């Protein structure tokens, strides 16, 4: 099995990593697809490794399922969403992420699980259950293609305190076949050694692979690539809304995108035909429009059963509210047919990138000059 050529010059896949990926792939067969849980501290390389692992798995399997649990740095969706995506194409360049339509998606509404760990776990468990139901139980006598799909689970880099507890809960529920722990040289920051989430008796069922982060300096200290995560999130949101326009349209700078969005005719939906829910905080009913105007909302389809989580089809920007006409104006790249089912707007804490609000001569009123900085 040939290794994927490394066509991304800045990404360095050490031998240890490729061996780990190979090991996972080789030792599995189609009736027992691997489920791989990737974890480790911040900036250790989890996302890069999982992308590499996806590519390797795709050489053997036609499709691989990807459960994205890192709400702050999502892989195939804009931030704030928890999703299960079925990938069937190899990513040629590991530096450029792609936007894909997930198979199932929930709007978590925040860039960290901190605000509501219970809801976070509920969504993830629901996504995993969906994977089991749809993509795992088909093994028996079918050909390789319709066998169970392997699953790759990416996690956030929060490995201490509440984050640790959340990881343990996830591991206990999912019971993956492989756990890949990426370690950095500063030992206190790593996860505990071994199968830290399991009690004594069950260690045999899982393979724990510990690998080190990719780069080290001459003193063998890990060199971590620090990312401006807020900026990356903004870029991702902007790339998501760039999809509102046809790809032939020449928009290559942020300013052009902002202008185009301000001029783009939005969808109008009457206020009485949509429900609005503020997920993480309580807003009095009379103030709901003050809260919604010029924010990012999740577009969701409420399910018939009351305790089932509403499915999210994408994000939208509420760009204006006309109370006289009773209309909400929403910009969204979601296609109109899919939108027809949407009857629920979910508001969370996904910040709207300020560069989208800042157009020369057309500045949003929520961007204000003369604000005293109390720093």
């Amino acid at each position, binding site marked *: 099995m040939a290794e994927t050529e490394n066509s991304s010059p800045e990404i360095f896949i050490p031998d240890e990593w490729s061996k780990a990926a190979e090991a996972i792939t080789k030792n599995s067969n189609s009736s027992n697809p691997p489920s791989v849980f990737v974890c480790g501290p911040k900036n250790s390389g989890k996302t890069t490794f999982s992308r590499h692992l996806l590519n390797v798995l795709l050489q053997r399997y036609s499709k691989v399922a990807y459960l994205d649990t890192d709400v702050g740095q999502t892989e195939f969706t804009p931030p704030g969403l928890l999703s299960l995506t079925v990938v069937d194409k190899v990513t040629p360049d590991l530096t450029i992420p792609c936007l894909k339509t997930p198979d199932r998606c929930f709007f978590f509404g925040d860039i960290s699980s901190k605000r509501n760990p219970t809801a976070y776990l509920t969504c993830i468990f629901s996504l995993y259950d969906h994977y089991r139901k749809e993509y795992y139980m088909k093994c028996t006598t079918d050909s390789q293609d319709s066998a169970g799909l392997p699953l790759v689970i990416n996690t956030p880099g929060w490995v201490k305190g509440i984050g640790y507890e959340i990881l343990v809960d996830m591991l206990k529920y999912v019971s993956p076949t492989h756990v890949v722990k990426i370690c950095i040289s500063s030992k206190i920051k790593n996860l505990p050694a071994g199968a830290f989430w399991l009690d004594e008796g069950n260690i045999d069922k899982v393979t724990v692979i510990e690998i080190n982060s990719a780069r080290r300096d001459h003193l063998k200290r890990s060199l971590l690539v620090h990312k401006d995560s807020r900026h990356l999130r903004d870029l991702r949101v902007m790339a998501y809304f760039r999809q509102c326009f046809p790809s032939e349209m020449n928009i290559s700078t*942020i300013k052009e995108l902002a202008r185009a969005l301000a001029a783009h005719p939005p969808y109008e939906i009457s206020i009485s035909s949509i429900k609005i829910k503020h997920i993480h905080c309580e807003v009095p009913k009379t103030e709901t429009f003050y809260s919604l105007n010029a924010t990012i909302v999740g577009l969701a389809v409420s399910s018939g059963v009351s305790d089932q989580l509403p499915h999210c089809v994408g994000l939208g920007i509420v760009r204006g509210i006309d109370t006289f006409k009773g209309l909400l104006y929403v910009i969204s790249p979601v296609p109109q047919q899919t939108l027809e089912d949407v009857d629920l707007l979910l508001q969370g804490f996904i910040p709207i990138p300020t560069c989208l609000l800042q157009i020369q001569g057309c500045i949003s009123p929520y*961007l204000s*000059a003369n604000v005293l900085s109390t720093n």
Partner: protein
Amino acid sequence: MESLLLGFKEPQQDDVVEEKSHSFKLVPWISWEEWNFVKTSFFSSSPDSINSALQRISTWRSRGCIPVVIDVTASIIEIQQKDPFFRDDLSEGALQSQEMLSMLYCMAIMRLVNGVVEKTRKKTVISIGEAANAIGIPRMLIDIRHEGSHRDLPSLQLVRLASTKALDWLKSYYWEPQEKAIPVNQTANRRKEIKCRLRELAVSLKAKQITRSSSLQVKGKRVRQMEHLHGHNKFLFLMAGKTSHCKTTGSKKQALDSSDFTEHTMESEIGHEKQQTVYDDWKSVVLKLSNKEPELLLNLLNAVLEKIETQEEIMRCKIGEHHNLDNFAKSCQIELLAYLFEWLVGNLKTVYPVSHKEPTECEDSLAESNLPKETLRRLLRKCLVLSCPGNEKLMDSALVLAQMTGDSSLLCKLKKMASLWVSNSNISKENSVVSHSVILLSEQEDSIRQAEEQFKLIRHRQMNGTDVKPTDSNVEVNSRWVVTKSWKPCPIGLLPHNLGFSGRLPVLDCNDKPREAQKVSDSKAPWERNQCGKRDADCPIEELDSAFIKKVKENEAVCESYDKDDTPSEGVMGRLMVDGVWKKVTEEELLPIASAIRLLV
């Protein structure tokens, strides 16, 4: 839906864009008025207003960018509202225990110190105490924070005292300095100044006219003329300065309040001046201003149309009360207004030459060099609705506007209508009074038919010519999510304005009751219904029809009143030929006839 996340070309340069040394920050309030409302409510003594401010704060918190000082102020005030020490009218059931209250206060003070001080210091360089001193926080608050997190809970009396001190300090540290930094006063002053100047100019022009019409001493005239010129130049200079200033702060519209302007132009010709030369002086002013401020023309046009509308309304209402003279004066005013309108439209044409660009292509959608067709169509519609038959000037202006839209068939239709009206007015002049009303009615019929056809055409064209994806008409009717048919670019958070790209502030208050009422009506018509008042641009065909019905009715009313007012020898005046016999018909009987005509049409 799969797409590559292409990097945008400006990676990390513009985190904070500097515009004239102002850096912009995301805030949860839509205007400084909202901020002011919260401030005054917080520091007032009425629990109700405090409550409304607290509600607004919870909304701001949901937006995620609330400044920590505001958050903390709100927390402290909220706790004080639950404390019987600060509020005498608390009911017995709502009391918290002393322990709870001290915990609440303590937490709020901790958040205050951490939130405000922690951001200002580098952790290893200076201690919290030193950093706090630098800002001027009362020492008591620092101590309480320390005590509360490392030792026992401080007593309620102590934390109550501390809360008052904290509020006073917050007022002096944030609320009052921020209020001073708000630029509100500047725009208000500017407006006052401009109004003042306009008035001066109006006075001097009026004086000029008086000296012109009544030939006084030559010397006096010259002095006044010089004064006038001086004022004129000063005014223009000032306006030029103000507009360039205003552009960056985005308060162009407020600064040039066009209704103000038209007020002054109206005042300048009140009374006996029927000549149209009165406008000549103002014309040069308008020209110069419109060079700097291209939106001024559009604003003026709209304002003039509104004036005409109101004058007509007044005329209609006053019919029967006053004698003809007043009416006559009013109709003269309308004439003058129409003349002004025509001249403005002529100017508009020179400023925006007819372009042959496709409506869908608009590369730089915010550039104002190309007057959008939408605006023209709206103006045209309004003009046609207003022009009473026989008002040639408005008709001509309408023709010019139609020409500017570049729509040749529309132009044809309008020309036909114009010729019809001309013949109509000719007929009404020539014929005897006998068949006056009858013929008028039949001509009205024709013109209504034509107009209705024509507006159907405009609407049809609009629907086809916009960017809406061609969907099934059935789907369009039933779908809830519909792409807006016509959209003007405007900042995110605002609603599009009829003219220009600055947008208008939305009204975001909502009550539950009207919404429920809306639900009932909306369930019948799932797509949007136009419930707006006059200022709304989108004018569905039903509204126009009713406008025309109004015209028919009012013309009948006019006829009737004229007949009443004239000599009592009636003959067949004021009668309608019904079933071959001249009958006198009342208003109520006319209404069903009018609606019947509509049905025929």
